[in-house]
Structure formats: structure tokens, C-alpha cells
């Protein structure tokens, strides 16, 4: 684009380029956002965690939900891979097992948006530091 002539031009340009650094802006204040952690160890990747993670990244963006999607190591629930840990602001983390694209959609629509619990929750039996 050439020539920013009005403030509206500048705002438009900003919208256009904002996605470049969105993730950085959000990371400054992660506790106020939805945090999605996808377990991406060998077992997870083998069961499709990579696709699940991409799905979360794209869909959360499309549905305009401010979230931080990260990957983590093996959570230890290898039987239920891919596993995803979701932390809503101010709430305890919740782990979901056997997540595929359909399940991810349900998690976004029902748990992340509405706070309803959905099937597939694995009781957390660990604490992290």
C-alpha cells in the first residue's frame, strides 16, 4: 500500500498488520486471557496434536477470541492423546482428552465461550509449579 493520507488509512493499515504482533501483545498479559496448551510430545503428535493445535490457533482467531495457544510437553495422559489443557481467566486449568477437530469445536463453543463443562474431562492429578 502506498500513501497513508488520512487517519482512517492509518487505522486500516493498523488492522491489516496487527495480526503480526497480536500474539506478542497478548503474551504481555497472559492471565487475563484464555490459555490453551496442547500436549505436543511424541505421543501427542502421533495422535494428531499438531492438527489440533493449528485448528485452535485458526479458529480462535476467526471467532475473535483473545487466547494464547501454546504447546507443552507430555502431560502424562498418553492413553487419551491428543490432550489439551484449557485455563479460563481466574479458573483452575481443565484438561480434555481425545481432542480432534470436532471436539475442539465443541470445547471452543461450549467451554471457552459459555463456561459449560463438556465430555472428555480428565481429572487433574498433578500440580505444576
Amino acid at each position: 500500500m502506498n500513501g497513508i493520507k488520512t487517519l482512517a488509512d492509518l487505522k486500516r493499515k493498523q488492522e491489516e498488520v496487527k495480526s503480526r504482533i497480536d500474539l506478542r501483545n497478548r503474551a504481555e498479559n497472559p492471565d487475563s486471557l484464555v490459555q490453551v496448551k496442547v500436549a505436543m510430545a511424541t505421543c501427542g503428535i502421533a495422535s494428531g496434536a499438531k492438527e489440533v493445535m493449528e485448528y485452535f490457533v485458526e479458529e480462535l482467531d476467526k471467532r475473535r477470541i483473545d487466547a494464547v495457544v501454546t504447546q507443552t510437553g507430555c502431560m502424562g495422559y498418553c492413553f487419551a492423546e491428543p490432550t489439551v489443557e484449557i485455563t479460563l481467566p481466574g479458573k483452575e486449568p481443565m484438561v480434555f482428552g481425545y481432542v480432534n477437530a470436532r471436539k475442539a469445536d465443541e470445547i471452543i463453543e461450549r467451554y471457552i465461550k459459555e463456561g459449560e463443562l463438556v465430555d472428555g474431562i480428565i481429572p487433574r492429578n498433578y500440580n505444576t509449579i
Partner: protein
Amino acid sequence: MSKYNTHLLVCAGTGCHSSESNLVYEMLRDEVMRKGLDKTVQIIRTGCFGFCEKGPILKILPDNTFYTQVKPTDAREIIDEHVIKGRKVTRLLYADPETNSPILNSTQMSFYKKQLRVALRNCGAIDPENIDESIARDAYQALGKVLLEYTPQETIDVIKQSGLRGRGGAGFSTGLKWELTARNESTQKYVVCNADEGDPGAFMDRSILEGDPHVILEAMAICGFCIGANKGLIYIRAEYPMAIKRLKIAISQAKEYGLMGERIFDSDFSFDITLKYGAGAFVCGEETALIHSMEGKRGEPSNKPPYPAQSGYLGKPTCVNNVETFANVPVIILKGADWFSSIGTAKSKGTKVFALAGKINNVGLIEVPMGTTLREIIYEIGGGIKNGKKFKAVQTGGPSGGCLTEKHLDTPIDYESLAAAGSMMGSGGMIVLDEDDCMVSVAKFYLDFIVEESCGKCVPCRIGNKRLYETLDRITVGKGKPEDIEKLKNLCSVIKDTSLCGLGQTSPNPVLSTLNNFMEEYHEHVYEKKCRSGKCRSLLYYVISEEECIGCMACKRVCPTHAISGEKKEVHQINQEICIKCGACMEKCQFDAIHLQNDYPKVTAII
């Protein structure tokens, strides 16, 4: 298109660059390409994170992982372990200096917890060579706002109400300076950005220019709009090649976008910026000297008035502001004067960047609200004194400032409190000294700098400081006379009262403040010929321990001045009057029987 889900931010400030961060960047990029991750992993070279002590810095987002001292050879492990498998590389994580345990999330680092980054808000967050990233972080919005919605006077009023004061040292109200320049009628006026950062150990201006160049361009244009200038000049020292490179890139990108040049935002306002290079003289930070240097004349100050606001560059009204001052302007316009004035103390608003250096654990660049205490800066952000030593003093304000001691630790820092404590804000250099530092030597160090940097125009500064230096030098080599202390005091006050410019008027400050706070050390040097810290070599004495010496004659044979006496199998003695303190004996002794002590040996009689 899949989106980037991981951002790797590699610090490309001068500090990290010199410890090979560019290689780290290249290795990471190659590794990402090789693993086919270039669609999901974005690698960005950013400005300074401020944590220069532990560079090169690599920050990984979104999980806020803060890796320190990353080597190019670590790239593969980071990509394999962290990016692909999600396991942090623990050995590279920043470890808490108290507990020694690695910190997983950078928001937990005490270095950042107490900081409030306003001037440095984009440093380490964006790629300074890409205008799009700046625009995504609100660059040029403030310029658009003032051009389309405000009159120049309204803009000046906002800056005045915010309470912003010059960050270069003296702390003059920025809004008032603009107003004074605006009032002087002239067909041509100039905006000058003073990027001649001269204080030893201070590098905030460089970091801002390297990490966020667009904020300076934008602020200069705002200033130009307010005072009625269409030309801006950045006076930058040629010793800052990276800042110069990034400024040039920024100017050409801004022009390409139409944010700099003719009729910005379709208004009647045009603004253009050019760079002027300085050769790195300390005195050129003084605005009249700076202007002379830009005109191609000798960098010497001249009498004020006339102030640059009346007659500056090429005789035209000129507004000179420091880099850090400018960096605060756009955010004040966008967030409002009230937001800015809610930060800080009664008379000093906003935040201040300090360059922490010296005997402190976390050397680097920090930004805190005015009114933060020295204790918070040194012990919480700075992580305390190196090697668990005892805090002695902190030199603020560079060579023109003074030292603050333990009794000032809980003073809230602002322009007034620092001046009351006998120091000054200066540009924000903070050099921390511990019990191993000799205050007389510290004063001598700064005087040495001043003697080098004095432009030589006026006598008190040129000759007076040289005499101060010589007197201090005499004291540190043990030749000080009792009357020297009184002489120092008198000379200091004469230099202060009669020098022409700010450099000369403040040059005796390091001597005065060490005299005020550490008179006992001067007394020890003069009367007892003793330096308690052991820094003054001439006041150290080589002695042979009676218990450890076996009388092997080895030291006696190497002594070039035959100062050692004693027969075989007898304890040897060093005659202090002849000893030249070369240290050859200590090196030769295989029994560690020769020691250095800072008291004149009591027993010197030969047995």
C-alpha cells in the same frame, strides 16, 4: 495460510549484537527452515530488552520464556526441544539470583516486575526495521490526531499539563520549551533531537533509537507542528552505527508510506528529518555546543541568552529535545495528559529510564515511575550487589552528578530529591559502587573524563579541572597534604560559579559529593596514607609474614631494588622506603608468605 503460533524474539541491540546475537538469529532461522517450521514460527530481531548483562537474549512467545546468554550453537536444541517438543531448555533459562532456580515465565522475573515501560514500551517487542510492526503498536496515530484534531497551542497545552520534563538532565518543562519556540516568529524553525549521549555507562537513547526509531520521528513531527517547523535534525554520534542505520531505514519507510514528507495526512503540514553526525564529544550534549557542531563549527557552548528558542541552528528558532523526552510524547497525546501526570511524584511526572551499571547483579536498562526508591532499583530490580558485597554508593547523573549513599537508599527518586541529595538526574546513568571501591579514585576517574572532554573555551573548566585532577591524583598516590582538602573545596566552588556552560558548572560535583559523603576516606588517604578499599596501589604495602617465610632467599634475589633483607633460613623483611611495589617477590614466593596490606607496616626494624 496457517498462522504463526510461536514468535522468537532475538535481541538485536548493540549489547547483544556484540555477543553474536546476529549469528544466533541466523542459526535459528536456518534451523526453522530445515525443520519446515517457517510457516508457524516467526523470528524477529527486536530492540533492547534491557537485560544486557546476560545477552544475547532470546524471548519465546506466547509462553514468555526468557533465555539468556544464548549461543549460536544452542539454536538447534532450542528449536528441537522448545519449539517442536514444548520442553524448555532449562540450562538457558534465567535463574533467580536468590534461589538459583530457573524462572519459567519472564513476567515472574524481579527485573521486570517493578518496571513500568513507557519510553521503552516497544523496545524488545517489535522489529525496528519494519514500519508495519510499529504501526501495529500505534505509531503515527498521535501525529494523525494532532494534525487533524488539535491546534498547535492545544497540543502544547496537553504536553504542558502532562508535566513532562526534559529527560536529558536539567529537567526543563518540555511543553514550556515548545511554547517559547512557537512564540518566536520566523519563516524557518528547526526541531532538533539530541542523540549525543555522552554519559559514561548510559545508553538509553541508543536503545530507544535502535529499538523504536519511529517513535522519535513521530514525536519530532509533532513538535514541528507545535512550534511551526518543517525541518527536523537528529544530532547523533557516529559511534552509534546501528542506531543510524535503523533511523535511516525508518525515515525512508515513513516517507514511502507518506507519513513523513509533504502534506502529511493531507494537511498543510510538511515535515522532513535529516541526520547530523557528531564526533562524540561530551560537551556537544549541551544544546548551544550541539548547535554549533551541527553548523560545522567547533563544538563549543556559547552564552545564554539568546536561547536556542530565539536564535539556534543557523540563527533560527530551534527546539532541542532529548531522545527519551521525545519517546514520551506520542503516548501522552494518545493516552492523555492526566494519564501521564498520574504517574510519578508531585513535580516529576512519568517514568525515567536508568542505565544500571557497576557492581550490580542485573546490569541493564530499566524504566521505573518517578518516585521509585534507590533500594527498590538496586535490590529488587538490580538483584542486589555482586558477590554479596556491601553497598557503598551509587553515582547518578554521570560525571556531572554526584554519589548517593546508604542514607539515601529510601529517598524517592525525582529531579528535586536528587538535587537535594547533592546529585542530579542527568541522563540517568547509575553506577553502583561497593565496599571495594575507593571514593577518591572514583572522583579522580570522573575528573579524568572531564579533563578529556572539556572543550577548553573557558579557563575555570579547562585549567581548574586539570588542577582538581592533579590534586586528587596526588592524594591517591599518598602524596596528599592536609591543605589539599581545603584547596579542593575552594577550587570546586570557583569552577562551579564561573564556568560558562553546564558541563563546567557541574564538573566538580563528583568531588564535592564524595567530599561531603566520604570525608573520612579523604582523611585516611591524606593523614594515614591508607586506602581502605585497597584500590590505590601506591597505598598498599607488601609484607612478609613471619609465620610463613622459611627464608629461602628467592624473593630477595628477584627484588629489582634490593629492598628485601634477611639471611638464609631467617625471616625476610621488606624495606618500605625502597620498595617500588612491583610485585615480583609475591609472584616468586612459593610459600604464599608475601601479602598485600593497606596499613603501613608497624614493625619495619630489621631483626
